[in-house]
């Protein structure tokens, strides 16, 4: 089979993995090297497909042959998709060619399980090793890890890869048992723990190394201690499928929260279960729940950047599902009106972060400005955050919400109507004012 035909099959087979991140590695370039590649902290999205997803890495499977029969997976044993297998050399050549064209940040390599977990993992590691050692490739490498592979292979994978991931697949072990009978929740958890331990050790060694300043005698060449070995400096991530089993949003967020605190994951990706060709009859017959996925990502951000605990986002005893009509921060504020309005001139940062419609950067700017003077309504307008959603929950030197507005039983419906109107106005105005156009106003 020609390379291009294999590429079609093995890219198609890999596209259900949501992650394409190439961030988290800083200060690597090709100066003084023989090969090419760099990583400067922020990943780059080199293209976007019409599904709105970014193309940052060459995301492919080494092979889509698989001995497992996970119901949700297009590559399961019982599916009749066409099968293909790349050699390690083919993947290396494709990665280097796309990279040279500046189409990608690097490689995200995964694989169906062939022969055994160890054999499969060895093949994945070999691709990464060849890129790093034979070609001095300094771009990004993300390896999907086979949970029950030998821990020594995991250790080796982390030497070459920038990020490792093990998919938790489903939010509960019952779901996993039902839909992926050959996989074990405890095996996945213990592999994640191993990776987390390796990452911690490497980070501590790196810090210790940076702290120790070598002493040189006058006139001697500057002494350099050998750098400690790297281990997945971009951390580890995982993916959960949403909507393939019966797990509620509360269960999903509880699982994510445990992953962030327990194994210090960089990211949990949520993948709305998508209809696949040759789907198993055990699965829901429906379009993917994209809005639910979106709300889960918003809730995830509240946990990671806004100081919310998972049980605050979905109160125990409620339906266990996120409100699809409004974002989770607004939903929380509406359910906790007794804490509002927030005085933007006096409230501490953690309370500013709880105001619906205020993002982290706006909060930083408000904090900086209020340290030199008092904030007024015009400042929110200047920041373009003076929306109905924000104004319902804040007070300023020259602004207070209408008496009784916060207690009104209609507040939720009013805000939904005003937000819809705002969206229509933005669409009609062409949405993006250019910076030049805005400047002419002043």
């Amino acid at each position: 089979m020609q390379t291009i035909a294999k590429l079609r099959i093995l890219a198609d087979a890999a596209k259900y993995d949501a992650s394409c991140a190439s961030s988290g590695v800083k200060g690597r370039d090709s100066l003084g090297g023989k090969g090419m590649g760099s990583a400067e902290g922020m990943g780059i999205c080199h293209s976007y497909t019409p599904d709105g997803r970014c193309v940052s890495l060459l995301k492919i499977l080494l092979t889509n042959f698989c001995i497992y029969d996970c119901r949700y997976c297009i590559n399961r044993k019982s599916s009749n998709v066409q099968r293909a297998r790349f050699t390690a050399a083919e993947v290396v050549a494709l990665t280097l060619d796309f990279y040279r064209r500046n189409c990608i940040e690097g490689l995200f390599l995964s694989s169906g399980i062939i022969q055994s977990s160890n054999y499969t993992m060895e093949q994945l590691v070999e691709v990464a090793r060849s890129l790093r050692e034979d070609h001095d490739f300094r771009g990004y490498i993300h390896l999907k890890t086979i949970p029950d592979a030998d821990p020594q292979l995991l250790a080796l994978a982390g030497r070459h890869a920038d990020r490792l991931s093990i998919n938790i697949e489903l939010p509960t072990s019952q779901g996993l048992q039902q839909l992926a009978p050959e996989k074990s929740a405890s095996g996945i958890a213990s592999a994640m723990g191993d990776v987390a331990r390796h990452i911690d050790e490497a980070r501590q060694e790196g810090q210790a190394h940076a702290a120790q300043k070598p002493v040189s005698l006058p006139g001697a060449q500057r002494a350099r201690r050998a750098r400690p070995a790297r281990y997945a400096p971009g951390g580890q991530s995982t993916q959960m499928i949403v909507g393939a089993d019966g797990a509620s949003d509360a269960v999903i967020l509880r699982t994510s929260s445990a992953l962030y605190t327990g194994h210090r994951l960089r990211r949990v990706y949520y993948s709305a279960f998508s209809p696949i060709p040759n789907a198993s009859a055990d699965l829901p017959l429906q379009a993917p729940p994209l809005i639910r996925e979106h709300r889960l990502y918003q809730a995830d951000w509240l946990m990671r950047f806004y100081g919310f605990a998972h049980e605050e986002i979905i109160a125990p005893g409620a339906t266990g599902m996120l409100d699809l009509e409004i974002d989770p921060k607004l939903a929380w504020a509406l359910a906790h009106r007794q804490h509002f309005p927030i005085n933007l001139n006096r409230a501490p940062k953690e309370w500013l972060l709880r105001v619906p419609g205020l993002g982290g950067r706006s909060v930083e700017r408000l904090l900086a400005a209020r340290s030199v003077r008092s904030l007024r309504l015009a400042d929110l307008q200047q920041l373009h955050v003076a929306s109905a959603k924000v104004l319902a929950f804040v007070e300023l030197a020259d602004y207070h919400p209408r008496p009784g507005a916060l207690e009104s039983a209609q507040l939720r419906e009013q805000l939904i109507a005003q937000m819809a109107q705002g969206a229509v106005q933005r669409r009609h105005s062409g949405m993006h004012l250019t910076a030049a156009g805005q400047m002419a106003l002043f």
Partner: protein
Amino acid sequence: MRAAPYGAESGQALSVLLDAPDDFAGFRQAARALLALGAAPDGVHWRWNDTLATRAAEGDLFADGKLSSAQDRVLTPDALDLLVPAPGRPVHIRKAQLAVLRDACCHRNPARFALCYRWLWRVQRMPQLAGDALDADWRDLERLAHAVGREIHKMHAFVRFRPAQDASGEPLHVAWFEPEHHIVRAASGFFMRRFTNMRWAILSPDCSVLWDLHALQWAPGATAAQAPGPDAGEALWLAYYQSTFNPARLKEQAMLREMPRRYWKNLPETQAISALVATARSRTGHMLAAMGDDPGEGEAAGAGEDS
């Protein structure tokens, strides 16, 4: 009465002539001298040479009549320094603020240098203004800098190199890119660090840059016709782009937000978009229909047509 050290007080405005549209070093040097002289922003006009273009076209720089007039006294930053009798009161700003000014000066907006200078002049008079993140001038500067930062990021993302050869037959990777702002210089270091061991060139309408494995070389602007066309290897990239798209999750708006149409003509993969969008619904419909039927009709079965 002592003669004014520069023309503004005699009704004559002062024009500063910078070396290039993105000459931040020159701006900084000139601003330092002007602040020491106490020059009010209204009396200072900013002009610049187009990168690498001859000064013969200087007449065009007066296109905006308000900016300058024939009576202006035109000085370079070096000449301005000679007018400064003693070092002035320095203006202290944070490193991050300096970076915002630097980026803002790459914007195409003709008022960029005037805005930077006005803000610095106001900070000199009222130092607490430096901490006011919501000051209108500062927010304008941040908007300019944000647009420039985004364009630099998009250039890092959307430059597409194609293999070619130079005049002496050496391999050379060449790209054509049309940036919205004066960012080619600011964006080039990234490509040098990433492709240190590969000879490459980026052509753009205003200026071109070549990495010869040792240094960045600057050249005048070019045209799209001077860049190489698609090669056989590009088919692999197109095949990847088509296959990695999931038709069940069509979200064109999300794509357009991050990859606006003005970039499309220089991105080879965008030629596939209309067909992918047009067939997405029917492909998804077939998948959903097939879920109830005989599983033999799946779409991926036809993916590798030449196996």
